[in-house]
């Protein structure tokens, strides 16, 4: 390589690095700004020009918040809702996916197309009748009302069907020869062996259900049933312009998903690659 080519290459690498860093700042800044604001005294958070680093670290923002707002309760609610949706989704979708992939029964094609076609129904077009139905059943302002509507999900069924189609047939056959029933084969062989894809899907399901806002907004009314996103918006209305407290709440609301992200980063990335879509 001649000299100008090398120079060119170094120049290019520097440009790329600068670009990478500038974009990284844009992506990460809101996090830092949130945390910085969460520790500021209430007058400093509205100061102009803004201070990047708080002049004093005010932990009281958090303790005050926990005293005034039952954040613990919101967290538990969100865990119950997102956790239950995830667990039941994974179980039901792998059962349905397995049947569609490996079992022979009449009307299979028709059923599969029927399941897939529900994927075309956007949530906002059914939110009104769904609300009426759930209310009629008596699930208004209950965990069941928050959880049940998010379990059936055609895309999850489709993905697991694709997975079980590629599943080694010999394993199931061997188990069947040993006298295992179809249900036995599924629960003893297929399900335990699909742990990696279930983990990847599970993370995606959990995060997208942690995020839900509109449905909890209309289907719950009491403070005891409030989930985290709802609680944080409520908080914003309650502490208008008390940005340090609002941001402290926002910071707390991020912690669970950040922990999941740190622990399961590889699963998340794998989950996105296999699913390509959030609910």
């Amino acid at each position, binding site marked *: 390589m001649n000299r100008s080519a090398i120079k060119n290459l170094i120049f290019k*690498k520097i440009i*790329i*690095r600068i670009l*990478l860093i500038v*974009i*990284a700042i844009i*992506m990460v800044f*809101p*996090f830092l*700004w*949130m945390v910085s604001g969460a520790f500021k005294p209430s007058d400093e958070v*509205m100061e*102009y*020009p*803004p201070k990047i680093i708080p002049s004093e670290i005010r932990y009281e923002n958090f303790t005050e918040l926990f005293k005034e707002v039952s954040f613990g309760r919101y967290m538990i609610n969100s865990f119950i809702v997102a956790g239950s949706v995830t667990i039941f989704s994974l179980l*039901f979708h792998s*059962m*349905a996916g397995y*049947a*569609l992939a490996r*079992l*022979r*029964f*009449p009307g299979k094609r028709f059923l599969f197309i029927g399941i897939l076609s*529900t994927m075309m*129904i*956007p949530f*906002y*077009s*059914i*939110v*009104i*009748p*769904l609300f009426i139905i759930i209310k009629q059943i008596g699930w208004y302002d209950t965990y069941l009302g928050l959880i*049940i*509507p998010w*379990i*059936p999900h*055609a895309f999850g*069924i489709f993905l697991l069907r694709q997975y079980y189609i590629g599943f080694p047939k010999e394993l199931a056959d061997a188990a069947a020869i040993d006298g295992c*029933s*179809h249900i036995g084969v*599924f629960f003893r062989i297929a399900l335990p062996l699909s742990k990696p894809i279930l983990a990847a899907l599970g993370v995606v399901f959990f*995060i997208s259900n942690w995020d839900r*806002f*509109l449905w909890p*907004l*209309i289907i719950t009314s009491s403070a005891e049933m409030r989930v*985290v*996103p709802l609680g*944080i*918006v409520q908080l914003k209305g309650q502490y208008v312009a008390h*940005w340090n407290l609002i*941001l402290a709440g*926002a910071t707390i609301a*991020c912690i669970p998903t950040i922990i999941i*992200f740190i622990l399961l980063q590889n699963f998340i*990335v794998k989950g*996105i690659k296999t699913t*390509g879509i959030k609910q």
Partner: protein
Amino acid sequence: MNKLFKKYKKQEVLAAGFFLAPDVIGLLFIYVIPIIFVLYLSFHSWTGFDPIKFTGLNNYLTLFKDPLWLKSLRVTFLYVLLYVPIVTLGSLGLAVLVNNNLPEIKLFRTLYFLPIVMPLVVAAIVWEFIYTPSYGFLNYIFDIFGLSKHAFLGSQNEALISVVIVSAWRQLGYYMIIFLAGLKDIPEVYYDASKVDGANSFKQFIHVTLPMLKPVITFVMVVNLIFALQDFDAVYVLTRGGPNYATYLQTYYIYEEGFKFLKMGLASSASIILLIIILTGSLAQLKILRGGEYE
């Protein structure tokens, strides 16, 4: 006849029924019955308390005469027009940028992905703080560069793009990962071949990368179109449809008519139209983008 019965084993059929029952019953109650119900309601007038009254096409006629609904249609259209290209091109650009072998590149990928970890509602709140006209950080930056201060969410002209930026900021890293997976799937041979033909990296991108990524681009665009047509959370937190209905999306219209003014029939007919828009929009996009695909 005998053959037909022999094709299926009783035990297998029973097992399939057991496996499929929970999800099929669920889909029936959560999707199929509601979609029939919403169609039925769209031809009726109902507040949720009094008896349901048949009104024929009245709801639809009301919609097309309602300036607010027409406005929300325009706003939604504009929102899609801003959001879909920003996210598609932005995430593709990020993917190309992080698809190199610098030693620290994994760190950047992680950082770009980070925003998706922030719940959308929280992201909206933090950005609202950043957008604050008087002491917000964005105006501080504008100030440093000698630009005039902006109202952002408070301005009729800037509110919509400000909301789009929040949603896009959060989604970019997610689709970056999908594009990155697509980029890694392109066989190196194609690049080598084009290099032999004397193509520079720009030409390689146009003639190798883009055609090979077409299925991924199609996927990302369709998914984002569907997402954009259904955005609600960010608008609810940031602007509540304002100022002066500048961010009044279709979903917000449905929410207000249905749950605030209890016009279930009218909101249902708006839901049906949103459904039609989403279906035709995504099918049209698929058709246009699928043209000339060699799969």
